[in-house]
């Protein structure tokens, strides 16, 4: 469980707070999406969960962040890394090896698992992520989507309770992005891993996450089920995040009093909404 209370952070040398008054609780097994424009503080927030803020990235830190009851400022980093696994924004620089297999082995070796344990986990994760055929490939020869899967595999192999991913689909095509989300949902449902994903593509978040957090200028603006959050279309516009078109359409229909059902989150639900509105119109004789 993640419990953040009254947390704030200012990078040393910076003249404004990168994170402000963050209060956030994430239960075990949740699938949470984090969205916000560039510079909103998404990456900074993820760094507080591993204690990299304030231990590695120095600055003024306020409030507290607890992971499974451990205070990230006071506890040993090593204890934290066993619980929280991180996939970072920059795919290339986070790789430590030149071959897929070695990349996955890296963390396993570091944490000192036995040889049997390592080989079992390695085989397992290759199947879970469906990357067995990439096992002996050079990382430099992989596509963006494949690399991202390897990066996730290297973390999943460590079997963390929480996985934090910073824009893993940032450089991927739509199909690979979908694959990553499906994979994360599978990890979330099958193994009960808590997933916190930073993502710019709001449609993907709407479709997959249980809970959506919107950040702006270092603070949390909205936090709740995607359906409730996306309703605030005008705030989204002010912040500069594009809302899915079905949601905008729904807002307009509601304003005209033509629709008062639930907010549609994908194309199918949008279609349902439109049909409903048309049927209602016919009844009213329009």
């Amino acid at each position, binding site marked *: 469980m993640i419990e953040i209370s009254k947390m704030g952070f200012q990078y040393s040398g910076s003249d404004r707070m990168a994170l402000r008054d963050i209060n956030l609780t994430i239960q075990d097994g949740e699938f949470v999406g984090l969205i916000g424009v560039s510079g909103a503080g998404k990456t900074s927030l993820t760094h507080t969960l591993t204690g990299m803020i304030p231990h590695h990235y120095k600055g003024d830190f306020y409030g507290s962040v607890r992971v499974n009851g451990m205070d990230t400022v006071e506890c040993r980093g090593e204890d934290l890394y066993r619980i929280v696994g991180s996939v970072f924004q920059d795919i*290339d620089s986070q790789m430590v090896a030149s071959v897929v297999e070695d990349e996955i082995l890296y963390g396993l070796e570091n944490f000192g698992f036995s040889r049997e344990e390592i080989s079992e986990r390695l085989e397992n994760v290759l199947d879970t992520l469906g990357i067995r055929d990439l096992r002996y490939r050079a990382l430099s020869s992989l596509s963006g989507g494949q690399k991202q899967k390897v990066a996730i595999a290297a973390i999943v192999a460590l079997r963390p309770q929480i996985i934090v991913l910073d824009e893993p689909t940032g450089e991927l095509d739509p199909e690979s992005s979908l694959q990553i989300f499906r994979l994360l949902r599978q990890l979330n449902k099958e193994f009960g891993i808590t997933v916190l994903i930073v993502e710019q593509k709001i449609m993907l978040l709407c479709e997959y996450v249980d809970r959506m957090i919107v950040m702006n200028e270092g603070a949390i603006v909205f936090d709740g089920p995607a359906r409730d959050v996306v309703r605030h279309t005008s705030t989204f516009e002010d912040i500069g995040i594009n809302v899915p078109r079905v949601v905008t359409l729904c807002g307009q229909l509601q304003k005209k009093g033509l629709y008062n059902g639930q907010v549609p989150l994908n194309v199918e639900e949008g279609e349902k909404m439109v049909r409903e509105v048309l049927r209602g119109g016919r009844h009213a004789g329009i």
Partner: protein
Amino acid sequence: MGNILEFVPGDSFLHRLNPITKIVLAFLFCICSLLSNNLLIQVGLLAFLMIIAFAAGIGEKAMGLLRTLLFFCILMIILQLIFMRGGVGYLVLPGGFPLVTSDGLYYAALFTLRIINATLPLLMMFAITQMNDLTNAMVNRLHVPYRYMFILTTAFRFIPILAGEFHDIMDAQKARGVEFDTRNIFKKIGLIVPLCVPLLVSSVKKVDSGAVSAQVRGFSLRTRGAGYKAYPFRLGDLLALLLLAAMIVLLVFFG
């Protein structure tokens, strides 16, 4: 073209040697080339290297490396030709001044071969050794601190990443109308130097995020025996080392 230090996968005798053996062999070969002043022996050494390269399936890579090295030797070849003035003169200019001499040719060839024979084995070593294996073997077997080996591997790993980054920055500048394909070398340098600052900033960021990523994956917990793969010394290692030791002995007495 790819990175000249890039690993070429394979399953040859050389590939399967212990990484430490490979690096020692490369150094022994360098010593061989430095021991001999005989042009024929240098030619023989280069031929031997090439045979090894083709046997290990990195023949093309070795040829490419050879061309690159030759290019770097051009200046030295010219200097040798100008300054070594003994022996028979060829291409005599009016006034009796020979453009090149037999001594000049001989030494130009000798030194070029020597430099190639001393560097090519090391470059070839990288083509058949994965940095990871080298790191693990050095840490497990030779007890080199992991920290230092990690720095070394990271440096190698970042060469292509930074090269790519540099390329991107150049492209971004080209898109803004900066013309890098100018013939004037000074103008070109003048255009490239300002790019070094953004490159430096972004590379520091990348190296830093690499370090953070290693850290959260347990970098500081790693112990000497942490490797999953074992790096035993086998008979093949011994034989290869003996062969090169014998070559050195022969060269000391007869080279």
